[in-house]
């Protein structure tokens, strides 16, 4: 589904990602771990198409197409979703109206008619229930005054509504207490299928107890330096990252 080949990208001529290689197949869950500043969020933003970052070398192949020149909305239309580490507050637009716009814009891009209101409503109800989201919450302004947990839950709600093929969850666990974490993880697990893939970016192994990865990658200094199975996450939790650095030397 996603094949990243020797990817270099950065800001203002300074590379943050220095030769990333990663392959994610349909039905898989990948975890990307690493210390602060290793380039985890940059990788997520570059795949989602944030224009601020410049790709200087390499390819991002998604469903057999190089997407590195596509606009963020075009990538979204193809089924790429990024759950933001820091979701943006937009006063004046309700959660419901925002998601309706997102869905219908995506449908428009696919030359489909707007989703019928009744179908939309049914879907909103269903997904909100799955994530234990209150109705009142949906009429509030997008992310405005939301707690950290509410913001993250809202991100996963959007993911549930948009049904992406490739979801990148950027530190979705930060700011969540254990109960909220379970609800969110449970929601993500329900969205998992043979046809889609999930990339989880996290500092901690905690989230991976609930969203069990098939592969774990360690990102350091803009490079994937070690890959393994879920056991690697436990090892990192226990021993930190220094031993990997030593291994590299």
């Amino acid at each position: 589904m996603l094949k990243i080949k020797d990817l270099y990208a950065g800001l203002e001529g300074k590379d943050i990602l220095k030769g990333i290689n990663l392959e994610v197949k349909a039905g898989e869950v990948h975890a990307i771990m690493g210390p602060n500043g290793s380039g985890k969020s940059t990788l997520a933003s570059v795949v989602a198409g944030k224009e601020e970052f410049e790709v200087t070398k390499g390819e991002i192949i998604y469903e057999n197409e190089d997407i590195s020149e596509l606009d963020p909305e075009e990538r979204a239309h193809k089924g790429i979703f990024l759950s933001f580490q820091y979701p943006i507050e937009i006063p004046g637009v309700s959660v419901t109206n925002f998601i309706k716009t997102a869905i219908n814009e995506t449908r428009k891009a696919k030359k489909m008619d707007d989703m019928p209101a009744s179908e939309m409503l049914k879907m909103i109800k269903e997904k909100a229930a799955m994530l234990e989201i209150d109705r009142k919450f949906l009429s509030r302004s997008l992310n405005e005054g939301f707690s950290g947990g509410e913001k993250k839950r809202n991100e996963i709600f959007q993911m549930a509504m948009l049904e992406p093929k490739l979801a990148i969850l950027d530190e979705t666990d930060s700011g969540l207490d254990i109960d909220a974490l379970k609800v969110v993880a449970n929601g993500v697990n329900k969205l998992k299928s043979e046809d889609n893939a999930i990339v989880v970016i996290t500092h901690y192994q905690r989230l991976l107890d609930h969203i069990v990865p098939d592969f774990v990658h360690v990102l350091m200094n803009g490079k994937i330096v070690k890959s393994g199975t879920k056991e690697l996450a436990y090892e990192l939790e226990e021993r930190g990252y220094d031993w990997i650095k030593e291994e590299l030397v």
Partner: protein
Amino acid sequence: MNSGFWILNSELKEMSFKDKLLSSYIALEDYLEFDSPLHDVRNNAIKIFEEKGFPTKKDEEWKYTSLNSLLKTDYSVYSNKERNVELQDVRKYFLNEMDTYKLVFIDGVYSSFLSETTHDTLDVCLMSAALNKKKYKPVIEAYFNKAAKSDSLTALNTAFTKEGAYIHIPAHKEVEKPIEILNFSTGNEAAMFLQPRNLIVVGENAHVQIIERHQSLSTNEVLTNSVTEIFAEKRAYVDYYKIQNDVESASLIDNTYISQQRDTVCRVHTFSFGGKLVRNNLNYFQNGENCDSTLKGITILKGKQHVDHNTLVHHISPNCESHQDYKGLFADSSVGVFNGKIIVEKDAQKIDAYQQNDNILIDDNATINAKPQLEIFADDVKCSHGCTIGQFDEEALFYLRSRGIGMKEARGLMMYAFANTVLESVKIPELKVRINKLIANKIGVSLGFEL
């Protein structure tokens, strides 16, 4: 010197319209009654106008707005031609979704056919009737021109006062439906100068909602110099909406004066979406304790449109509040001005005055001039003001686009969201939907949800 010649030339042109007005006044005087106390008021007013003339950029208050180009036009001061306006021509400007009282003026003349007035427990009728009929004399004498300032444009209107809305709500009366004041101009004359004059007296503990609109039905030039005086007696509640969405050949100078007695709530929302040049002089006088004044506005401009909001909140009494929130979106080479003045008198202790003005410049050639002015003579007050001028937040745009919302729609949604926060305080749901649609229309994007 070349530049000197041009100044002189433009002054001559201005003088000509001024002279035309002055000689029109002499003609008008023949029709005025000798013994009317109004006659003195008019005479004083025309003297003020004669002395001061039209304001120029040299006046501090008019630094960013020039009337020069407007005053070069040869306006007709009144029109004798037959007006043929059918309901179908103007229906779309009415708030059709609900029942309302209506005061409709065509080229400055009352249209009984299009209006819906009342004298049943409250007066929703005509200024001309109020000025001439004996039974209104006490009200006219007590209120007319008592809140208005004596600046030259207001004085000009006062001198020529002839027609407009007269609304008198008796004490304890809650008006069950909104009142619409609609001023249409037909284009019967090549260029028309209109001066509506409204007097609104809201009695003790009474409640009223008013919607005012100026609309040209042609592309001929129109210049309106409107004066509205609103008196809120104690515990009265006034909710006033100004819809300014006129064609690009129409200009408006709106002078509104609000005199508040104790425990009153007066709110004015100004929606400035159209017109060539619009100047809003909105003045509040808090004459009693516990007044609440709200001034909110949304300005959305494009092309070469120019809108100037000049607000004054005069805190005269203690324990009052004022809230100002103006938002502006400026495209192309449009120009916005926000000049917000707050005066806090020595006795006006423990007041809370808030002023916020946020602007987004959509294009590089758009301009906003923002100038908050605070004059505080009391020592125990809360005054805050903020002003922002920005462009679109790139992070927010990326967030929207990452959800599949294209660049144009993402910008549209951001603009809609930005303006929409002002609408929260609109108390007439049908009007709110109307304005919502106007905003979406102005921004020019179809949003993925029903408004």
